[in-house]
C-alpha cells in the first residue's frame, strides 16, 4: 500500500472519521451560520429592488443556493453510493446515506420557496413545468433512498440497496439542470453563469454567492454530524462505540459495567 492509500484507510476507519468529523462539524456549522447570516442581511437590506419584480426577487437568495445544493448533494450522494457499491467501503455507505436527508431538505426548501415566489410572479403556486416537475422527482428520489434505507433491517444491506437507487436516480440530475434550456418552460433560465457574463449586478450577486458558499459548508457540517451517528449505529457493538456511549452518560457507567 502506498502512502495515499494508507492515509485513506486511516481516515476511512470509523473511529478516526468519527473523531475528525466531530472536531470539524461545530466549526463548519458556525462558519455556515455566520456567512449565511451576512448573506441574508445583504440580500434583504443591501441589495437593491429589482426593476421588474420589485422586492419579490429577494427570495432568490434562499431559493437559488438551495436549488444548487439539491443537485450538488445528489451528486455527492451518488458518488459515494458508487464507491460503496464498487469497493464496499463502509464510510462511503455512511456518507451516501447521511447526505440523503440533507439533500432532501435543500430540495424541499427549493420547491417551497419557488412556490412562494411563483404565486406573486406567475400567478400560481404550482405548474407541471419541466423544471418544477423534475425537481419534485428529485425530492421523491431522496425520499425513496431514505425510505429504502429505513425499510431494510440489516444496516449494510440497507445502505447498499439505497445506494443502488441513488445511483440510478442520477439520470434526473442533468434533466433538472438543463430542463430550462431543453424545453419551453415558465421557469426562467440561469441568471448566474460560471462561464461567461452573469445577468445580475454586483450588489445582488455577492449575497447570492456568499449564501451558496454558506449552504455548501452547512451541507458538509450536517453530513459530518449525521455520518457520526450513522457510524455509531453501525458499529454499536464495537469497543470504540461503547466507549463513546459510556462517556456520554458517566453516571450510568457504574451500573453498565456492573
Amino acid at each position, binding site marked *: 500500500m502506498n502512502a495515499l492509500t494508507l492515509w485513506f484507510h486511516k481516515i476511512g476507519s470509523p473511529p478516526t472519521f468519527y473523531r475528525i468529523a466531530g472536531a470539524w462539524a461545530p466549526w463548519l456549522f458556525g462558519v455556515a451560520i455566520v456567512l449565511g447570516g451576512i448573506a441574508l442581511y445583504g440580500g434583504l437590506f443591501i441589495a437593491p429592488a429589482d426593476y421588474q419584480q420589485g*422586492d*419579490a426577487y*429577494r427570495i432568490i437568495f434562499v431559493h437559488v443556493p438551495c436549488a444548487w445544493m439539491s443537485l450538488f448533494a445528489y451528486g455527492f450522494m451518488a458518488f459515494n453510493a458508487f464507491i460503496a457499491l464498487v469497493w464496499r467501503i463502509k464510510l462511503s455507505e455512511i456518507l451516501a446515506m447521511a447526505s440523503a436527508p440533507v439533500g432532501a431538505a435543500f430540495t424541499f426548501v427549493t420547491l417551497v420557496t419557488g412556490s*412562494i415566489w411563483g404565486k406573486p410572479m406567475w400567478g400560481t403556486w404550482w405548474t407541471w413545468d419541466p423544471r418544477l416537475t423534475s425537481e419534485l422527482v428529485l425530492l421523491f428520489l431522496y425520499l425513496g433512498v431514505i425510505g429504502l434505507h429505513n425499510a431494510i433491517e440489516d444496516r449494510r444491506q440497507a445502505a447498499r440497496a439505497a445506494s443502488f437507487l441513488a445511483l440510478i436516480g442520477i439520470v434526473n440530475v442533468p434533466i433538472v439542470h438543463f430542463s430550462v434550456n431543453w424545453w419551453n418552460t415558465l421557469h426562467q433560465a440561469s441568471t448566474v453563469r460560471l462561464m461567461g457574463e452573469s445577468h445580475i449586478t454586483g450588489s445582488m450577486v455577492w449575497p447570492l454567492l456568499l449564501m451558496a458558499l454558506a449552504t455548501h459548508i452547512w451541507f458538509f457540517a450536517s453530513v459530518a*454530524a449525521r455520518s457520526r451517528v450513522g457510524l*455509531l449505529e453501525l458499529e454499536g457493538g464495537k469497543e470504540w462505540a461503547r466507549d*463513546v*456511549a*459510556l462517556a456520554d*452518560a458517566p453516571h450510568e457507567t457504574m451500573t453498565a459495567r456492573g
Partner: protein
Amino acid sequence: MDKYADYIWSAYAVFLIVFAIDAIAPRLTRKRVLAEIRGKLKRRTARETTP
C-alpha cells in the same frame, strides 16, 4: 419591503425552520443511538453476571 413582504418573509422562514430541524435531528438520533448501545451493554452485563 413592499407588497411582497409576506411572501419574502415566509420563504425565509421556511428556509430557517427546515435547517434548524436539519441541525437538531442528528443530535436527537445520536442520543437515541447512544442510549441503545448502553442498553445493550447493560443487558449483556446483566446476563453475564447472573448465575
